């Protein structure tokens, strides 16, 4: 199973060298082999899973922190895997026709394969951190796919907004998942189910729920994080059909469904989900019929459908969890079909504006059939799969534990609007008169109209024979969430409230469709409010970082130095004062010899000369003299290696300084007295503080164990008598290795900076 998940990644890597063959039209459909083979692989598991078996696969990755490739195929993951690979097959085929001739076609399929693999990873993972890794990978591949038309600034902006929102939610999700793993002691979802009571009683339960909801809501476009989804419609239509209707946006719903046995069933779970789902579904449905761009209508109705799914997950009763997988399948089928149809219309007529489109059935009959069937399924007309789905939703709301009438009313209003939206997207472009501007439109290549037709016809077939998917896929899916739920799907349940509600929905929705003219409502302020908040905060962040950079990183080395030293002085002083009374005992200082006094005298004279000279060269030579004096101190205290290194470095630095200074203008005295006094105070305080710390350190008992170890073992273990060198190249060799890497990086930096300069001055 590991290979099945990772196959998409391997394919996308292979496309790097071999992609140009994909661009040749006759080879492009070959890409469909990937999702098709995976679909067959997963479909082969249907008989076993419908009997209640569960397949697992385990492969160690980082066992020390508990991240492993743990996969589990049960009813819920099988449903999603079949959706991902099945719709994936159709989308890949469709894209072979839709994107024909696009220069970046190989990249497109690479991103799509990567996305498919990541999404499969999300739904198949049993390890919660692995799920998170794949979750983020879907966000990243979605980023590339939304911004695929990379020349368009709008596309880039939309992809960035989508990435920021889903990424931010993903970050919060990670915190929540790690917390849950910490409390239950395991990262495996199956094992977490056993400790779910402990989790739900824990004080951090509310926080975990909040974080997980943040992740699910951002990914599944719930209010107020919904606004990235209409923007994502800038992606090419195959992407919109695949990611932003059928699979990726359902990842949040999948997460809620998967974690229901672990976290769900309590009030803290139900109330936020029902409220958020309810608001989203109404909001999305209401605004969907006021849009004129076909893709936007579909985007908002998708938002609404996701709201319904979250709503159902929140209600959490047996009926709701029976309805949830059914509705996932229903929505995936009709929404993907409608998106693909929209893509064909856009591709052939060049417009997606509903007010301009009509009568296309005369030129694209198969698509008209597909559109009508899909629209019927979205409306819940009997004999379509959508009818069964809607019925189950009403059944769930009517049997809810609290406020069944309000919940049913919300669902009713939502569905009425969704009926109208479905008709707008699926029927309106095909009905009526064909205007002259569109009379040259023709039916495109089979790759483009067969997939949507297949999808919508499946909607009808499943509607007439619901037991087909019901027993084999959907019932095990529900049982992954609640054990022992019996969900045999029937077309006819008899004359009851649910049937009445469905009838009301269809009638009102159809009326709405015929009455309404596509016009933007005057009150679109509410529409844009979350988006405006987002853009304002992004702009605020940019202003803040500009101010911060200009103030703190002003480019003057002296202000950096000043700030670093002042900060360290404050920090050190705080620590010194806090760690008890300052004892200064001069008893432990070793006797001072005449050499040291002389050298110290030269040192002080050199310092004075450096600070007060008016020639830069003198100042530099002064610092070198200071360096040599310190060198001599090292010699006095028997550190010859150190002294030698310091000596040579000092000489070389002096040479370096001289050559650099040659290029600068003659010495300009920037410092006035006030600045000098300030610098003097800072320097003096730093010096005094360090001296204090050194004197304090002498009072502490010195642990000589380490130096004894090195002294004794330098010859025995490392065959060397020079302990310093032995430490450098043997005992602490890793440190030396990294030091020389740092040195080489520094050299490369200097080299490239200077040679870049030279090239630009040559240009002038």
């Amino acid at each position, binding site marked *: 199973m590991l290979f099945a998940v990772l196959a998409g990644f391997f394919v996308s890597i292979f496309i790097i060298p071999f992609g140009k063959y994909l661009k040749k039209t006759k080879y492009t459909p070959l890409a469909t082999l990937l999702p098709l083979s995976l679909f067959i692989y997963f479909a082969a598991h249907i008989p076993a899973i419908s009997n209640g078996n569960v397949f697992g696969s385990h492969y160690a990755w980082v066992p020390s922190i508990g991240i492993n490739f743990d996969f589990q195929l049960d009813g819920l993951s099988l449903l999603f895997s079949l959706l991902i690979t099945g719709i994936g097959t159709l989308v890949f085929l469709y894209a072979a026709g839709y994107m024909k001739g696009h220069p970046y076609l190989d990249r497109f399929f690479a991103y799509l394969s990567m996305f498919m693999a990541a999404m499969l990873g999300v739904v198949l993972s049993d390890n919660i951190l692995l799920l998170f890794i794949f979750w983020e990978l879907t966000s990243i591949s979605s980023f590339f796919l939304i911004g695929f038309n990379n020349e368009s600034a709008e596309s880039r902006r939309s992809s960035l907004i989508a990435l920021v929102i889903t990424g931010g939610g993903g970050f919060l999700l990670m915190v929540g998942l790690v917390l849950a793993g910490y409390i239950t002691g395991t990262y495996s979802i199956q094992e977490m189910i056993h400790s779910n009571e402990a989790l739900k009683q824990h004080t951090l339960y509310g926080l975990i729920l909040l974080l997980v909801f943040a992740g699910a809501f951002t990914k599944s476009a719930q209010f107020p994080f919904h606004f990235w989804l209409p923007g994502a419609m800038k992606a090419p239509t195959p992407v919109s059909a695949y990611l932003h209707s059928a699979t990726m946006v359902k990842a949040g719903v999948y997460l809620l469904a998967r974690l229901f046995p672990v976290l769900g069933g309590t009030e803290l779970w139900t109330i936020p989900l029902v409220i958020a789902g309810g608001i989203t579904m109404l909001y999305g449905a209401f605004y969907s019929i006021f849009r004129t761009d076909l893709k936007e209508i579909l985007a908002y109705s998708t938002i609404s459908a996701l709201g319904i799914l979250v709503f159902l997950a929140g209600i959490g009763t047996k009926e709701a969890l029976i309805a949830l997988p059914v509705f996932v399948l229903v929505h995936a089928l009709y929404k993907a079909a409608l998106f693909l149809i929209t893509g064909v219309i856009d591709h052939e007529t060049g417009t997606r504006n509903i007010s301009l489109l009509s009568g296309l059935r005369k030129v694209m009959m198969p698509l008209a059939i597909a559109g009508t069937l899909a629209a019927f399924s979205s409306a819940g007309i009997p004999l379509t799969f959508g009818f069964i789905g809607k019925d189950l939703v009403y059944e769930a709301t009517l049997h809810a534990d609290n406020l069944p009438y309000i919940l049913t009313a919300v669902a009713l209003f939502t569905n009425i609007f969704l009926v109208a939206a479905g008709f707008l997207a699926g029927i309106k472009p095909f009905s009526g008169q064909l205007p002259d501007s569109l009379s040259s439109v023709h039916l495109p290549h089979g790759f483009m109209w067969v997939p949507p037709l297949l999808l919508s016809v499946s909607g009808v077939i499943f509607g007439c024979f619901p037991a087909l998917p019901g027993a084999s896929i959907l019932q095990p899916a529900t049982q992954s969430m609640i054990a022992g739920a019996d969900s045999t799907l029937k077309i006819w349940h008899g004359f009851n409230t649910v049937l009445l509600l469905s009838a009301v929905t269809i009638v009102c929705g159809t009326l709405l469709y015929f009455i309404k003219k596509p016009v933007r409502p005057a009150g679109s302020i509410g529409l844009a409010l979350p988006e405006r908040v987002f853009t304002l905060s992004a702009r605020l962040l940019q202003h803040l970082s500009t101010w911060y950079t200009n103030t703190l990183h002003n480019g003057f080395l002296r202000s950096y130095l000043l700030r670093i030293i002042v900060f360290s002085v404050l920090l050190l002083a705080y620590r010194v004062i806090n760690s008890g009374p300052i004892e200064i005992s001069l008893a432990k200082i070793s006797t001072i010899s005449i050499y040291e006094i002389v050298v110290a005298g030269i040192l002080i004279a050199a310092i004075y000369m450096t600070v007060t000279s008016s020639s830069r060269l003198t100042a530099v030579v002064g610092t070198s003299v200071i360096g040599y004096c310190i060198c001599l101190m090292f010699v006095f205290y028997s550190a*010859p*290696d150190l002294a*030698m*290194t310091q000596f*040579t*470095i000092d*000489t*070389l630095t002096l*040479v*370096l300084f001289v*050559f*650099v200074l*040659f*290029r600068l203008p003659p010495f300009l005295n920037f410092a006035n007295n006030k600045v000098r006094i300030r610098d003097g105070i800072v320097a003096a305080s730093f010096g005094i503080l360090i001296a204090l710390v050194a004197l304090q350190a002498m009072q502490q008992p010195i642990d000589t164990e380490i130096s004894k170890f090195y002294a004794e073992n330098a010859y025995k*273990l*490392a*065959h*060397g*008598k*020079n302990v*310093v*060198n*032995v430490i*450098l*190249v*043997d005992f602490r*060799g*890793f440190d*030396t*290795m990294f030091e*020389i*890497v740092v*040195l*080489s990086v*520094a*050299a*490369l930096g*200097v*080299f490239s900076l*200077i*040679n870049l*300069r*030279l090239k630009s001055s040559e240009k002038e």
Partner: protein
Amino acid sequence: MKSIILKTATEYLLPILLLFSIFILLRGHYYPGGGFVGGLIASIAFVLHSFTHGVNNTLKLLPVHPSGLIPFGLAISAASMFLPLLSGKPVMTGLWVEQPIPVIGSIGTALFFDIGVYFLVIGVVLTILFSIFQYSD
């Protein structure tokens, strides 16, 4: 600098300083010295040469541009680090030849590590200094 005394002296000093740097390198394990100091002394030799003869002439003396010495040194050090893996020991185990050689002393992975450091230090210092010298011209 056009002093002819310095110029002539440098022509003799350069090989002496280079020999001295190798001496310091090889004695590092037993007496003060080692790869770092050896490399620095060798770079000082080349810098002195570049004062009197010009950077381009010094660059002609070197078989490869100093920035090429950097990966060379890193490679030797890294190889000495990973060599023990071939005999199944952990990275950076010290492997030593049993018999010490009369002048140099014991030969082992630590010595090669030091040699790598030596070349790297020469490469780094000369890259930085020569880039700046050439920029100043």
